């Protein structure tokens, strides 16, 4: 492995919170990050992400219809799911109307069920950055 893409190196270890940016042009590999945290001896309590991109109707890795946010630059798909609360489920309902449009969205959610570069995201909130053409 190599150290490319590391632009600075600070971490709020007192609060146990770290914010990370994938290396430029590379998809987020959460499995590698989980492995790094585990190898260092820390339990991973949770992870959230904010992703900019466009919403698409796709098939999930199991072949079922799904909504996914295609991240800008890499095109990595973040499969969107309803969270556990009514507000999270409502957020998913509202965001679905933006599928297959050229709008640029910013979606913040909880990461779950990562498998390689396949990442699930429970929508907590989203913003429309650009409504497109």
């Amino acid at each position, binding site marked *: *492995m*190599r*150290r*490319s*893409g*590391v*632009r*600075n*190196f*600070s*971490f*709020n*270890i*007192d*609060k*146990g*919170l*770290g*914010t*990370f*940016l*994938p*290396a430029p042009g*590379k998809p*987020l*590999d*959460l499995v*590698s*990050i989980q*492995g*790094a*945290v585990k*190898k*260092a*001896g*820390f*339990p*991973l*309590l*949770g*992870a*959230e*992400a*904010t*992703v*900019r*991109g466009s919403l698409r109707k796709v098939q999930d890795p199991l072949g079922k219809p799904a909504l996914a946010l295609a*991240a*800008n*630059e*890499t095109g*990595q798909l973040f499969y969107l799911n309803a969270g556990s609360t009514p507000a999270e489920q409502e957020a998913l309902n509202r965001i679905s109307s933006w599928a297959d449009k050229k709008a640029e969205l*910013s979606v913040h959610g909880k*990461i779950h069920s990562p498998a390689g570069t396949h990442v699930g995201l429970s929508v907590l909130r989203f913003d429309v950055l650009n409504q497109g053409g």
Partner: protein
Amino acid sequence: MKKETSLLLSLLSLACASPTSAPGDQALQENPVVVTIAVGGVT
């Protein structure tokens, strides 16, 4: 810095992630994906 903390940072860099002290809107403007993790056992 504790040895475990240093190790974590080193391993994260090898995972091609870039820890940042400027999360939020500023980081998001420059990057399409920003990830925040919470780890235990650091105090």
